[in-house]
């Protein structure tokens, strides 16, 4: 198994605050890698540095052997990285089917194409692809409804369908279960587990909820005060005294 995402010496300062200082972070292809840490540990900053929303002050970010540092979010997506947001970001005014057709179009036609003459609803390639993705994720029966009217759980599933329709190499999930009930959380875990089996794609999950991380991830990195203080399998992390300390207070490690 090769390394698909490799981060070295990435740091970011906001004024006087050293928000992030990650010496080394590697993700192996085909694995589920979790990033956990207490509030304010720099998890979201780290993700934003990977996805192109923030440009780190120093360091390198290599995806699939190429540097993606300084690229715009849409360019990083075109390279094969999809992102699920903390609160689902979907096209609320459009139908569920259109929501999935748009990422498929972006995947096929690139970042910009004035494709104004043909009809979208007769584009069977895009349409069938979108429908089959919706079937995978269990939303196909509602595909002509407006996306904005769905429940939060369904919006989350739709957002994942949108990402999966692009067949990304790497899927980044920012707190996929934030604000969910225990039942919804478990449903999301099952959904993500199912995806791992059928698609075999690499995932990086940023999560607050230990339960989710320990039941999903193959490897876990622990962030505290912008630094990775521990990395290993779920069992190693569970027994690591540093992690316990970071979570229970007294972060001076």
């Amino acid at each position: 198994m090769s390394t698909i995402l490799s981060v070295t010496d990435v740091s970011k300062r906001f004024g006087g605050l050293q928000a992030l200082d990650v010496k080394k972070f590697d993700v192996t292809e085909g694995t589920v890698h979790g990033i956990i840490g207490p509030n304010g540990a720099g998890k979201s900053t780290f993700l934003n540095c990977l996805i192109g929303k923030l440009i780190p002050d120093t360091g390198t970010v290599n995806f699939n052997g190429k540097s993606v540092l300084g690229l715009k979010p849409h360019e990083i997506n075109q390279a094969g990285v999809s992102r699920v947001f903390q609160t689902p970001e979907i096209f609320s005014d459009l139908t569920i089917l259109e929501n999935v057709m748009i990422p498929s179009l972006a995947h096929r036609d690139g970042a910009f194409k004035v494709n104004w003459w043909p009809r979208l609803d007769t584009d069977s390639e895009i349409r069938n692809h979108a429908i089959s993705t919706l079937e995978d994720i269990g939303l196909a029966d509602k595909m002509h409804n407006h996306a904005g009217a769905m429940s939060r759980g369904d919006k989350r599933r739709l957002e994942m369908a949108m990402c999966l329709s692009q067949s990304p190499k790497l899927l980044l999930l920012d707190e996929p279960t934030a604000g969910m009930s225990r039942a919804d959380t478990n449903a999301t875990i099952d959904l993500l587990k199912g995806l791992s089996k059928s698609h075999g794609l690499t995932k990086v999950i940023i999560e607050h909820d230990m339960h989710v991380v320990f039941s999903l991830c193959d490897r876990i990195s622990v962030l505290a005060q912008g630094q990775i203080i521990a990395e290993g399998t779920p069992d190693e992390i569970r027994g690591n005294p540093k992690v316990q300390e970071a979570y229970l207070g007294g972060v001076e490690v």
Partner: protein
Amino acid sequence: MLGLKFSDFALFMLVVLCVALAPILLNPFPASSELAQFNAGYPDLLQRFVIFGVFAVGFNILFGLTGYLSFGHAAFLGIGSYAAIWMMKLLTMNVIPAIILSVIVAGVFSLLVGYISLRRSGIYFSILTLAFAEMSYALAYSVLTPITGGETGLQPKLSDPRILDAELSAGESPAANLFGIGMRDSYIVNFGDWVFTFNAGYYIAGLFLLVAFYLSIRIFRSPFGTMLRAVKSNQNRMSYTGLNTKPYTLAAFVISGMYAGLAGGLLVAMDSQVGPERMFWTASGEVVLMTILGGAGTLIGPVLGAGAIKYMENILSKINETVLKGWFEFLPDAASEWVVLFLNMFTGKSWHLTLGLIFMLVVIFLPGGLVEGGQRIARLFGIGKKRNQTVESDSAASK
């Protein structure tokens, strides 16, 4: 049919029919009757209906699809007009080169304005476009007077070169034409007490409206149009979906600018004159009103809105105090005086008050514009589909 799904094709055919029969449909009252002043089937107004229809259809591609509210679209209309009049002065009175150049020049100018204005969104975008339009207006009035004719505007003159046209014979004045068909040529039919005027200029402009409307349907239903709706819905999601939103908004801006240029060229083709007031900010505001009144984001809405506003502007404003007095003669003097005084606030010179009231009512009670009003009436009588069924049938038709 024509590459459109059935419902769109039916709508398009309805518009074709309305444009073809407008001189009859809009002249329902006999010429000698009291109500003849409500007739809108005369060439000058009909031409305005279709030309401002083109303008609003183009504006709707920007505002209705991407949600970017431009307050400076009259600048593109004005610039298209100036380009057209110069073609008429230098090249030929044939309208085709004039219209082609007006579209190109407006497109280039909107590329420039759009590139700068689209760096911001929301109210800042609106203000930037307004600033550009006001700048164009001020320039046309002052430093650009050699090109724009300043306050007096431009008209074709006998002394203009017009290198492609033959010499005019004595006493003949240059008239806009399409390969010899004069824009003012009309075919008048007297049918009983009715007078129907079939004007060549109107039908030529109408043809342009139909082409513009057809292209707008294609854009609405295409992948490109769907991307523009995605811009309106969630730009953040779009960029994380691998789409570069900036060129999409710029393309929509340029397309709508070219539509505005086409409308400007057509205006010149019809009346062969242009002045800077065409670029004034009220003209930019008018197209916003037309689009919202008819229904932004709908296909037919802008055309309806343009028609409604131009009808009020031309018909309502003609009902002055004298006309009102004539209507209410039968009332006792005191009562008639009060009624006339009251109604006079809404008609004649003050027709804007009626427009304002109607606009308020539409925005408050029919956020989807006149189109939504039509849909509600249709549902009331059990015609037409319920809202959630519409989408279903769309997909069925495409299979």
